[in-house]
């Protein structure tokens, strides 16, 4: 399994575009600088600044879309060059293959949120909007870790659909719809969709965040767990069928 994961990372070296996608992590920190320059001015509470840069649209929209694209690319690559047959001949265990792809998604998600955290601190401190204090920085890093780990699990359904498909059109459209659904369901029912459940888990202790639904952290974990398990089963069935 570890060798498979290593091979997956070695393959990434040839894919420049995947590294280019990390630039999307800078979007919200840069947007926050423009927002606070026009609205608030200097002396902003660091947590409020980080809420803009790292705890809002980044976990709701940007990170899920980027991870969804990554899932599609990882799976489509093997299909495009007809590599799967050769992998099955080696033989490679189908679930090990699936989870090695997931490991890449997980590590990429952590890298993405670390870039967001670094950019948040740099843009906030360098522009003079927030003071540098270790307590808020540690809080930001902890939250970014939570977001990255949970989002990687929350996009498992996209990875499973990408594994079940030969093309890239359906998984990509599904990524957009899946992310949009998670964002909208935040306001309706947070315990139906893994992405909105992830938000419930991450946001519950952020100062100033008020939920209009009763908070139920076990239900949120259960939602993510059920969807992840169902995705693993779907991926297994799809990969076994595709001989």
């Amino acid at each position, binding site marked *: 399994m570890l060798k498979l994961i290593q091979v997956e990372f070695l393959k990434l070296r040839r894919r420049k575009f995947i590294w280019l996608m990390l630039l*999307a992590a800078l979007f919200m920190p840069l947007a926050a600088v423009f927002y606070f320059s026009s609205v608030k001015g200097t002396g902003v509470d660091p947590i409020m600044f980080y809420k803009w840069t790292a705890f809002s649209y980044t976990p709701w929209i940007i990170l899920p879309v980027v991870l969804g694209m990554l899932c599609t690319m990882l799976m489509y690559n093997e299909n495009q060059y007809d590599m799967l047959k050769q992998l099955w001949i080696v033989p490679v265990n189908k679930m090990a293959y699936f989870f090695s792809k997931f490991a890449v998604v997980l590590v990429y998600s952590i890298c993405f949120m670390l870039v967001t955290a670094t950019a948040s601190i740099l843009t906030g401190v360098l522009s003079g909007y927030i003071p540098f204090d270790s307590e808020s920085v540690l809080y930001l890093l902890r939250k970014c870790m939570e977001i990255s780990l949970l989002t990687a699990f929350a996009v498992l359904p996209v990875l499973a659909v990408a594994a079940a498909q030969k093309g890239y059109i359906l998984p990509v459209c599904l990524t957009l719809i899946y992310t949009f659904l998670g964002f*909208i369901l935040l306001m309706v029912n947070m315990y139906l969709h893994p992405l909105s459940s992830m938000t419930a888990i991450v946001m519950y202790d952020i100062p100033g965040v008020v939920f209009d639904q009763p908070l139920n952290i076990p239900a949120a974990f259960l939602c993510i767990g059920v969807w992840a398990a169902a995705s693993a089963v779907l991926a297994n069935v799809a990969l076994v069928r595709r001989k």
Partner: protein
Amino acid sequence: MMKDLLWAESQKLHRSKILWIAGFATVMVGLIVFAQGQFTFYDRRYIDGAGWFMTAAQSLATFYVLPAVISLLGSYMICREEQEDTLKSLRLIPVDEVKLTLAKMILAFVFSVLIYLLLFAITFLVEAVLHLEALSVGLVLENLKIYFLDGVGVFFAISPIIALVARMKKGYWLALVFAEIYSFAGLFASMSQQLKTVYPMTAVFNISGYYNANMFQVLIGVVILMVCVILSLLILKGWNRKTK
């Protein structure tokens, strides 16, 4: 020649699943916004307000989903010739590659308008079922105009991205990511009055009538979208010179 190219491209699309997938994405957008309409504000659900569904669906779809789907279709049509290795055969005929790309762009434009009209049809049907008596002809026609102009405007706004993809051939991933970030950034552009006027995605809303815009803002919006079209034509022309 152009007519033949358009016919051939439409035949290729018929055989592809992408139209069904795009239709499915549009229906899903309708369903998701309908789910949002269940949200209660001051003891009243959003969906209970006549016209809310039609108005909310087009703006949310434009900021989050449809531009990326339209650019995906445009880039898919262009990149598939390279991917499926049919470009060599087309060159042997010979087919003018710029005309071929233009035919694909025209189809993407038609698709953009149709997808917005499909969303309008879905939202209108739901509104009619929920509260037909509260819907006025003026409200329905106003929304039809907004959806139609959104379809036209969004295509013009994203045409440079599709043209860029035509130049890069294998850059369909870029088209998707660019289009998604481009449309999503419209949310932030709409916070500033000046930016709202000049940013292509929000300029579309000024033209369509979704935003309350004065004549000057509408004219600026038209100019901005024309600049987008000229930019995409220049990219295509530059690419033609390169291939010759």
